[in-house]
């Protein structure tokens, strides 16, 4: 063979061989190249919050809009899921042995940010603190009378049935503090000590202004997506917060102003919502102690008939009109009660007349100037029925101090919803914080206590539906509308931010950069 032919043969062979090798390296139906896990370490976001906890001891803090910074630092024993039910958290599972015994199976190999290990003994030490620490939420687990531990379980023994304990363990009471910090509790004034996905960088934070949290490399949940860092920026004024978000300084915020929702949508933000509250009046003196008229069922029913709930929804914003206290998807919600009272002025007048008030009644209603639009609308709607509403606006601290006292027969009620059984205990039982006149309906007391003892959700729902029927038929409250929590998220900076039912702000667990 000539040298030229040999060269041609060799080069052909080499070329074909190279092509074959290249083909072998590409994707095929039988082999796949490994996918690279996303790198979450470099992402950073700023979340606006109206306030931050004054103290990093979760047992001394409240929840609602404090929840996000607390979540950053602390895991909870149970975690609230998207359907509103408690699910696994630091406890892999929980079961009710009977209606007074709750068993938690603790996850292994979990460390606090300071290196201490999470053990059943540490959980017991934390939960027992609820008896000695004064905090807004410590009463949520007051039914826990004793705690037993084994190598991997924690058993809560209750003095009385309380089905709301698992829900309490998804919030402050379920937040576990390092034993090292518990031994020196003053340290919690400035620095949290939890097992959460982030740790606070105190050097780069300013109290009451901004708090920088960085991802915790010791975090136990290595498969959960996260951010590299989160800055919580304290902005009190909602307009300033929305401006900051629109100008790109903030990436997520909570907003209670219904008028801001279209603004947020037009700015390209994702708006996530959940029904989280209701608007209305708490007819607290429904026993007629200081205001005889309120003690009459026909009067309370007349109030319910004198309200145009559809019109009020324009003021409340997103949500839905309602005549019952428990929202869709929650225990006790009964679809047949959605429109129990129609807007009927003639009927309202007739009811008042039959109750002995043909000339109408006057209600002095404690309120806040922030709610003037709603209250004035209510005032105008009720006037044709002969119901005169005197709006008594007071500053917020006075409103909080006065509303649940016997000085206040009726007050404007913005009720942040929680578990229906817990709500009923607060509002309807004579020992409830929102029942200052200690009015009791024995049938309701019995039903609520039975629901507390039930361990099946279906049974609880059945019993609470009966509570709803009594509350609505006897018009114990004036509920007009369900409102939503609105949460705005910049989709270019944040993905997978979830808003669970009945929560005030979106959870930071699992959120990550797009």
């Amino acid at each position, binding site marked *: 063979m000539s040298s030229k032919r040999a060269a041609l043969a060799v080069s052909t062979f080499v070329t074909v061989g190279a092509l074959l090798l290249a083909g072998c390296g590409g994707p095929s139906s039988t082999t796949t190249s490994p996918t690279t896990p996303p790198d979450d370490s470099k992402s950073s976001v700023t979340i606006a919050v109206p306030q931050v906890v*004054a103290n990093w001891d979760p047992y001394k803090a409240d929840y609602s809009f404090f929840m996000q910074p607390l979540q950053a630092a602390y895991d909870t024993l149970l975690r609230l899921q998207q359907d509103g039910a408690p699910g696994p958290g630091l406890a892999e599972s929980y079961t009710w042995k009977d209606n007074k015994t709750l068993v938690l199976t603790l996850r292994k190999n979990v460390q606090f940010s300071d290196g201490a290990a999470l053990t059943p003994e540490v959980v017991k030490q934390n939960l027992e603190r609820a008896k000695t620490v004064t905090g807004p939420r410590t009463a949520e687990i007051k039914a826990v009378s004793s705690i037993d531990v084994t190598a991997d379980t924690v058993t809560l023994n209750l003095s009385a049935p309380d089905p709301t304990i698992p829900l309490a363990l998804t919030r402050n009471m379920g937040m576990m503090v390092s034993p090292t910090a518990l031994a020196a509790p003053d340290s919690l004034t400035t620095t949290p000590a939890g097992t959460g996905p982030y740790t606070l960088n105190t050097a780069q934070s300013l109290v009451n202004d901004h708090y920088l949290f960085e991802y915790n490399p010791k975090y136990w949940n290595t498969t959960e997506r996260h951010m590299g860092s989160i800055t919580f*920026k304290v*902005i009190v004024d909602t307009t300033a917060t929305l401006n900051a978000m629109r100008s790109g*300084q903030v990436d997520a915020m909570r907003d209670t102003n219904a008028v801001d929702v279209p603004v947020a949508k037009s700015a390209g933000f994702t708006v996530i919502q959940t029904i989280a509250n209701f608007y209305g009046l708490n007819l607290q003196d429904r026993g007629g102690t200081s205001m005889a008229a309120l003690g009459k069922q026909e009067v309370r029913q007349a109030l319910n008939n004198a309200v145009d709930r559809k019109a009020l929804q324009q003021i409340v914003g997103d949500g839905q009109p309602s005549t019952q206290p428990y929202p869709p998807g929650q225990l006790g919600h009964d679809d047949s009660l959605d429109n129990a009272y129609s807007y009927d002025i003639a009927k309202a007048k007739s009811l008042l007349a039959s109750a002995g008030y043909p000339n109408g009644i006057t209600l002095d209603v404690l309120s806040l100037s922030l709610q003037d639009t709603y209250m004035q609308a209510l005032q105008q709607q009720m006037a044709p029925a002969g119901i005169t509403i005197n709006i008594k606006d007071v500053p917020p*601290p006075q409103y909080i101090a006065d509303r649940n006292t016997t000085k206040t027969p009726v007050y404007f009620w913005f009720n942040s919803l929680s578990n229906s059984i817990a709500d009923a205990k607060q509002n309807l039982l004579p020992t409830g914080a929102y029942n200052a006149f200690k009015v009791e309906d024995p049938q309701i007391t019995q039903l609520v206590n039975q629901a507390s003892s039930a361990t099946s959700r279906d049974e609880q729902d059945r019993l609470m539906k009966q509570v709803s029927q009594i509350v609505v038929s006897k018009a114990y409250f004036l509920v007009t509308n369900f409102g939503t929590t609105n949460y705005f998220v910049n989709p270019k900076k944040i993905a997978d931010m979830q808003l669970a039912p009945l929560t005030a702000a979106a959870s930071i667990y699992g959120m990550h950069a797009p």
Partner: protein
Amino acid sequence: MWKVIAKRVLIVIPMLWAIVTLTFLLVQGLPGDPGRTILGQEATQDQVDTLNHQLGFDRPLLEQYVSFLGHLVRGDLGTSILNNIPVTSILGPRVPVTLSLALCATVFLIVLGLTLGTVAAVVGGRVDHVIRLVASLLMSVPSFWLGVVLVAILSVELRWLPATGYVNLEVSPMDWARYLILPVLAIGAAGTAAAIRQTRAAMLDVLQRDYIRNLRANGASTASIVLKHALRNAAIPILATVGFQFIGILGGTVVIETIFTLPGVGQQILQAVGAHDLPVISGIVICTTLIVLLTNLIVDIISVLLNPRLRTP
């Protein structure tokens, strides 16, 4: 002159005592229950009573007052009831923010006010009319409204300047200035208007004096007459206005710091009042009072330096 200054300094102590006492009484009169405010509505009454007892709110008023004064006299501003950290730790990083805002706004109003007021007085005619119109407009616009409008246009729509926040001077002077532009414009507008009007009035008065006519007759330039002679003699009432405006700006920081989310003293006091946090409230009142008294003292000293007739007590 030193006697005058000494008198001004000595008067600080009784004034401070009076203001601090008034603050104590006003806080006691605030509606609401401190323990309930801190713990929230869900807490039981027993828990609220326990916390009130721990914080000393159930003691007799006189006992609380004496204890409160005792701490202050020892220089102890106390510990925040809400945050449980020393008041000085809370106020320390915040005072420079508020001072930055107030001082920058004052410099802004001095520069713009003096310049436009002088131009109006010297040039007169249509220029004077326009400047007076601008001053009237600036004076009638509320600072919070101006702040919101500036943010809507310059931050949200145009994204030229940040809507909220603050950067320390030592971290980045450029960013420090950028973040302060809008708040300074918002809070300084009304003060600038006052400075324009005062400067114009004072300059018009001085420019009509005989010695100014003599200076013109002797061939002195307008610039020399205005800058070297007239302005100096017009300075005292202008100085008083500037001092007064600075104090007004200090008071206005509560609203502006809220709109622009500046981590200053003004924003902090809102939270402290809401939480009945008396140590923080009194700490802020003392700081602010000292700044106001110091401002008045500086104005008085400069006035004395400018006008020898004021040097005798």
